[in-house]
């Protein structure tokens, strides 16, 4: 739960500094006050989200232990490494964000921009290390298991686990795609009512600059991830696709509600041999189904399948929006003049975040009942402390409350049209470009 909350802030914390730095770099070059206003607003957004992300991240580092002391006692020595490195990356981010936010007129422009760049980079780096630790839970390596204890530890090999690169790539792209398109979408929504507002136009452009390329690359990295999962965690992939029986020429399932008792799926649309084709680039290849693992080792299939479908659907839509945007830009069209495009982009604003939560569900629920794949069951790791429900409810309520406040602040501080009246009507279409 905390993770589900934290991941949203972490994602924006990775994406937002990039937007802020781009805006500042543009302002340093152009001297355009709109760019400066955007840089300042996005830096405020970064500040708010970073603070909430920092405290919720602290909660997490404790909660790993508070909830799963068994897991941490076993796994601490081996996955502590990425966490330590993450700590330093995070430290760097905190230091330079402080310098960036409060240093506008205390250090030279060049140093200030550099501080922003360091924030953006260290944000990505710390995300990378955390995802590496999670990837290890999916693909544990770097140890020998003897009598329930790890021996022959090799923390470096653990970091280089087989799931690491794919997951890191997928998550970093997701951060940029979700944040970039969310920003673009919000301003697209406002442009629908106020299409000549130069402020929102600029915000839309920078948002798309960050979001669109990432959204286009994301399906590719998803493909790499899926093939990796098929190889290393067949039960998870089978659950994602609700594939109950191992078969050659396995179909790709769209929609449908899997039934774990009867081992069949209702109301689904099957594309014959689609799954084999996607995973192995060969329609006749065999794909491992859920029947290859004992029933007790199944994750909850409907949850995993539906979450996976949600992620795929939203990801594809986002890629389409990105494709359309790039196409229009390439043709020299005026993006803000096309109401249909604005509507679709506005609809895409929340998609990235929903897709991320869905993807998170896939990788976590899909690994159940294991907390460390094929090594430790979640039930063996949980704390002996009774009454966990109270902790759970408390933190849920707290996070919900914080979420509402953050949303309100973001609206009033960042998104709302600036007061400078002259920006409302200053956009001049480039000559000859627009139809």
């Amino acid at each position, binding site marked *: 739960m905390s993770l589900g909350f934290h991941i949203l802030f972490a994602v924006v914390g990775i994406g937002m500094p990039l937007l802020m730095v781009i805006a500042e770099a543009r302002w340093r070059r152009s001297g355009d006050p709109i760019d400066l206003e955007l840089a300042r607003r996005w830096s405020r957004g970064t500040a708010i989200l970073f603070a909430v992300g920092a405290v919720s991240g602290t909660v997490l580092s404790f909660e790993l232990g508070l909830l799963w002391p068994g897991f941490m006692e076993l796994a601490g*020595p081996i996955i502590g490494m990425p966490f330590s490195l993450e700590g330093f990356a995070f430290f760097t981010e905190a230091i330079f964000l402080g310098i960036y936010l409060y240093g506008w007129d205390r250090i030279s422009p060049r140093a200030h921009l550099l501080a922003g760049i360091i924030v953006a980079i260290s944000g990505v780096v710390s995300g990378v290390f955390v995802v590496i630790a999670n990837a290890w839970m999916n693909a544990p390596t770097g140890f020998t298991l003897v009598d329930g204890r790890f021996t022959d530890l090799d923390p470096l090999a653990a970091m280089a686990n087989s799931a690491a690169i794919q997951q890191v790539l997928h998550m970093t792209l997701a951060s940029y795609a979700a944040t970039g398109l969310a920003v673009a979408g919000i301003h697209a929504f406002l442009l629908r009512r106020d299409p000549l507002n130069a402020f929102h136009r600029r915000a839309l452009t920078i948002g798309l600059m960050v979001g669109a390329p990432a959204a286009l690359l994301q399906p590719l990295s998803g493909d790499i991830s899926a093939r990796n999962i098929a190889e290393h965690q067949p039960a998870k992939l089978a659950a994602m696709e609700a594939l109950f029986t191992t078969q050659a020429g396995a179909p790709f399932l769209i929609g449908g509600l899997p039934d774990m008792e009867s081992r069949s799926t209702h109301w689904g649309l099957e594309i014959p041999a689609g799954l084999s084709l996607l995973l192995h680039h060969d329609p006749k290849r065999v794909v491992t189904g859920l029947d290859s693992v004992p029933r007790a080792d199944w994750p909850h299939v409907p949850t995993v399948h539906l979450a996976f479908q949600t992620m795929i659907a939203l990801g594809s839509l986002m890629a389409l929006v990105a494709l359309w945007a790039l196409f229009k830009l390439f043709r020299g069209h005026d993006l803000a003049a096309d109401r249909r495009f604005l509507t679709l982009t506005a609809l895409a604003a929340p998609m990235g975040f929903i897709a991320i939560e869905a993807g998170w569900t896939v990788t976590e629920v899909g690994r159940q009942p294991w907390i460390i794949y094929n090594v430790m069951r979640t039930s063996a790791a949980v704390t002996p402390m009774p009454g966990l429900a109270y902790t759970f409810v408390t933190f849920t309520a707290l996070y919900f409350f914080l979420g509402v406040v953050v949303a309100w602040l973001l609206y009033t501080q960042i998104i709302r049209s600036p007061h400078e009246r002259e920006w409302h009507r200053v956009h001049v279409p480039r000559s000859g470009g627009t139809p």
Partner: protein
Amino acid sequence: MSLTAADLLAGAILLAMTAYVLLAGADFGGGVWDLFAQGSRRERQRAVIANALGPVWEANHVWLILVVVLLFTCFPPAFSRIVIALHIPLTLILIGIVLRGSAFIFRSYGGQDSLAQRRWGRVFAISSLVTPLLLGVGVGAVAAGRVQRPSGEGFVADFVAPWLTPFAASVGGFTLALFAFLAAVYLTNETCETELREDFRRRALWSGGGVFVMALVTLVLAWQGAPLVWNGLVTAPGAMPFHLAVGVTATIALGALWQRRWRVARLAAVAQVSGILWGWALSQYPWMLPPSLSIADAAAPLITLKLTLGALGLGAIVLLPSLFYLFRIFKSKAQVKGVS
């Protein structure tokens, strides 16, 4: 006595804790003084506090994350015992940390709505008061040797009794007094306005007295209820010079405050607080969780320790210059003048 990799890492944890107390502890103390801001200069006092915290509190806060990460990487059994036995206070600490950080940032970026700002200010201040108390309670429970494997004797025995003791409570009060004292001493260095300086000087002298009283109370309660601590403080090799050093620096700090030698006071207060922390650590060496889990027993396999030491070295290369830069920008004498 030769130092092992585990000892070095325990030392690194102690250093990170020291940094956390000296920096973030003072940020908590700042919140306490925000709560007790009064008189006609109330809002100006609050502004000085907010200015002092703004650029640095997040970086200061990360020291705690470093402590936690080092603990679970290098001393997993100790971490596991702590998080089980101290589940309740730790959860409350987390809530306090979340509320303090978010309330501070919400107040800073909350726009013009002054009622909402006042409310966030209140949340920030109250959570700054409660969190140090609980942190101290946790340290007290560890020092008293009450953090052990769950005995299975029921909820109260395993999850409440370890930390609900008069001794732990007194350590909580002691921690709060220390944080408030540190903050007040630092704040005298954060402004050039004479009136505000005098306000913080009075607070520093009062809370310095509070530190002294709480130290006595804690000692008496240790003698009664925490023989481990008492013995450690009195008999550990090298304990006496430490106590002496703490006494001397405390006297210097108060004397310098009296004479309005602000920078000397700050330096002495830093030395005093570090001395107290190290004295505690020394008194329980070689135990990590006295009386049964030693640093060597709790340590992770050697390869993990070595790699972590390497990571710490690398991290320090990045971190120390960055921190130096941060504090030079915002905390140097000229900068403070520039703001006021």
